[in-house]
């Protein structure tokens, strides 16, 4: 009897090993990767939901022996994956967290790759009357209108870069976010930008959106919301790439991450960013940042970016540049 059980165990183990390794072999993953490196990139939803990263991935993979694995999550979660050693680099838009990521030794070689603007969107009827207001005035009016039952505010509520931005805007307007979040006109979706826009549309409510995602959903006819406040300095949105520190994560695909960052800031990568969506939306969803910062072609805008997303006057302070000064030439 014992021998039979032994046979069963061997048979089961064999089946398990054969089917799992067969699958791994078939898909060319795990130990069977076919000479291509697997680079895991955790990224913010706005870059992903717009389809920009799919476009970049295709062009990059055609050129380099590196397969990009894109995990799309809010900036907070994207950073958490990197801190756990589950991703090799991050693409995010939250300068304060990026700074901590560098200072705590998780990341190196930060490069600003693109920018656009956050925007406060709402129903065409604009029940709170914020059209043309400054950001601070607009938020004041929304609170008043919300409390009177005339409208709602929809928040991402997911610890993403956009969510952090929203909280800092309430703060700058002198409104206590912790207080209003419990009021019944303030809803949190806990979801990505796209879904939050759909919820805002459903309730004819206001929300803070990044311009890229808003434009995509608006032009595709999925939402009927209008840009009411936009383009101000306090609504600037800056996207950066940061590689995971190879000293801290010896198993991270560091050179692969650097290769991808170099591609993103190359003329080709920047062209993909600037042209993405041009044909369909008649305007880009994201603006390339590399040439702008290098040539200082629009000093006012460059100053905004420096104020918002530079650390001690650098996009990446020299002590966090690892062995890649060429990124900052």
């Amino acid at each position: 009897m014992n021998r039979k059980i032994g046979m069963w165990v061997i048979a089961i183990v064999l089946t398990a090993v054969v089917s799992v390794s067969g699958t791994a072999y078939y898909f060319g993953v795990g130990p069977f990767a076919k000479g291509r490196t697997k680079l895991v990139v955790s990224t913010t939803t706005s870059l992903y939901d717009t389809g920009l990263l799919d476009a970049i991935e295709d062009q990059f993979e055609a050129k380099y022996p590196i397969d990009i694995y894109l995990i799309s999550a809010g900036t907070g979660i994207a950073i958490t994956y990197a801190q756990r050693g589950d991703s090799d680099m991050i693409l995010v838009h939250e300068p304060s967290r990026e700074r901590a990521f560098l200072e705590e030794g998780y990341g190196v070689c930060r490069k600003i790759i693109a920018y656009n603007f956050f925007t406060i969107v709402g129903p065409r009827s604009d029940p709170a009357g914020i059209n043309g207001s400054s950001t601070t005035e607009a938020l004041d009016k929304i609170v008043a209108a919300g409390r009177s039952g005339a409208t709602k505010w929809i928040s991402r509520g997911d610890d993403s870069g956009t969510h952090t931005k929203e909280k800092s805007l309430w703060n700058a307007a002198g409104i206590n976010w912790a207080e209003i979040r419990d009021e019944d006109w303030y809803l949190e979706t806990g979801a990505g930008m796209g879904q939050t826009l759909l919820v805002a549309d459903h309730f004819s409510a206001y929300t803070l959106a990044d311009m890229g995602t808003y434009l995509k959903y608006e032009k595709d006819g999925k939402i009927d919301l209008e840009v009411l406040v936009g383009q101000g300095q306090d609504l600037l949105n800056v996207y950066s790439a940061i590689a995971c520190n190879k000293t801290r994560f010896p198993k991270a695909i560091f050179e692969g991450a650097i290769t991808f960052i170099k591609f993103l800031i190359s003329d080709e990568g920047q062209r993909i960013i600037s042209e993405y969506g041009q044909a369909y939306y008649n305007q880009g969803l994201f603006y390339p940042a590399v040439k702008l910062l290098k040539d200082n072609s629009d000093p006012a805008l460059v100053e905004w970016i420096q104020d918002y997303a530079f650390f001690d006057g650098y996009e990446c302070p020299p002590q966090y540049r690892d062995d890649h000064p060429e990124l900052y030439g």
Partner: protein
Amino acid sequence: MTLEINSEIIQITLRSLYISGVATLLSVSWSLPIGVIIGLKNFPGKHLIKGFFNALLGIPTVALGLFIYLLISSSGPFGFLNLWLTPSAMIIGQAILITPIMVSFTTSAVESIDPKIKDLARTLGASETQVSLAVLRESVNGVFLAVTASFNRAIAELGVAYMMGMNLRGRTRVLTTYIGLEYERANWGSVIAAAIILLSIVFAVSLSMNLIQRRRA
């Protein structure tokens, strides 16, 4: 609105079928013997084990997904296998997920067989393995049901597929995670197409199993 059936959705459908199909086979390889042994033999703790598998029948897929993620992610004990974000991880996760269904259904099927068949087989001089096989032959309808239910649970679940594969385009994207993403992107044409495909698979599998059973009966 038009339903969008393109090469991407077909590729995703095939990947779904492959992953959940292999997961079912894998699970059968260990669940069937376990189920038959629990159903046939009497041993101390038998009710405890049966209760254990029954309790796991409705295990939340997200909880199981999270648990396996912690085991196989880079900082987990099995991180060196580099399984996270691969179809293999999804297969293993789904195979574990459906094991309680396979075991419980097989056990009940075997237990529902008239014990006289066992005695008869023994009096006819059958060995223990032959007795087991005889009972298995009698309970084959129940086993079919177990396999069908398991496959359908695997192909229709979201939590494990998402947490193991993270919905990577062209790599680990399956029907359920695709539906989740396209819903977020509000692409109703493809979301509805994918949902119809998923429903069709589940119904078709159940139906064909039904037909097989009826022909046997």
